[in-house]
């Protein structure tokens, strides 16, 4: 199991336990866990509605690629720890991480 924590917009935190080898993005896991994220573009790094801040465990994640960095750059509220959940694969690199949901809601 991979365990990491999600902080919702209202500050409530919840730990998620995800089986290894699930082959989903963090965005897909968040949607499946009924978090209120739009993910309008479906995971192509085009809409930035799955914007998260990685409050803990940022360095363990594989670095963002150009498409993600370009999109993050257009976000007025992005910080140095901002990522797009759709570009993060859920695997052991997420163990112990803390993500805060930042994208605009419905």
């Amino acid at each position, binding site marked *: 199991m991979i365990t990491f924590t999600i902080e919702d917009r209202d500050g409530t935190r919840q730990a998620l336990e995800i089986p290894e080898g699930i082959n989903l993005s963090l965005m897909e896991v968040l949607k499946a866990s009924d978090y209120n994220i*739009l993910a*309008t*573009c*479906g995971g*192509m790094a*085009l*809409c*930035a*509605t799955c914007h998260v801040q990685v409050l803990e465990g940022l360095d363990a994640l594989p670095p963002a690629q150009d498409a993600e*960095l*370009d*999109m993050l*750059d*257009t*976000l*007025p*509220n*992005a*910080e140095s720890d901002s990522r797009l959940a759709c570009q993060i694969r859920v695997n052991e690199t997420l163990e112990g991480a803390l993500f805060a949901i930042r994208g*605009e809601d*419905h």
Partner: protein
Amino acid sequence: MRCHLIDALPQVGGQLSEIYPQKPIYDIPGYPEVKAQTLVDNLMDQIAPFKPGFTLGERVESLEKQDDGSYVITTNEGTAVHCQVVVIAGGLGCFEPRKPEITNLEQFEGKGVAYMVKNPELFRDRRVVLAGGGDSALDWTIFLADIAQEVTLIHRSDSFRGAPDSAEKVVELARQGRIKLLLQSNITSIQGNGHLKEVSVTAKDKSVQILAADHLIPLFGLTPKLGPIADWGLHIDKSAISVNTVDYSTNVERIYAIGDINTYPGKLKLILCGFHEAALMCQSAFQYVYPNQKLSFKYTTVNGVPTF
């Protein structure tokens, strides 16, 4: 039946042509792999015999129900189309400027705050603050440096991902003192009295400075929004239109929604599903287009294309 297609984009194909024309798609039946634009081109060939009409580069603003139940659709350019049935295949919605989170920002829209530059002359001899780090922020900073009295560019990062040439030019203009460049900074509030007067900027070290400004132009790219669709009395669920899966009709008679814009239990945002939804929608739409005729279901393999 005849179809007239209206799209806010200048070309047909929606996301496929606009966002990922060269990306291969692997889940279209009959095509092990097909580029998005090729699929659109093929679809255009396939529908050509049915002579659809096209209004491109215009956004539908209003639907007006007529006494006989039909609709007149009007675009932002004033194009009007009379039809028996409206089918919304709006995909992600339409792309609108992304707005930074500044509490009273919308209060100053049109009163100093604008999200695009339509007429640069408006800014002549004015004090202009731009925010953003992409190509359009860089380009307009360079352009307005020659026109405005004072130009300030605010960017939250310390580097630009826009075109390197433009980024260098902006840094050079700042070095020459022709513009003011505030990096690692964000606009935290704006003030004014009926019209924008001041912009408060907070730097990474939490220091705040207040800039006198006549205009603020936030340039943070585009984000998909439902736009006018939200005002048509349709049931909206999480930014999508609720439909009945019997025929993909909405809660409003004669208005259907197909593709990524709709939602229903079990919805999958797949091109494949959009085709299926369109087929069922057409069967249902027939009753409004030809109320006195009985629809008989036909196969192209039996009758060929022209009989449709």
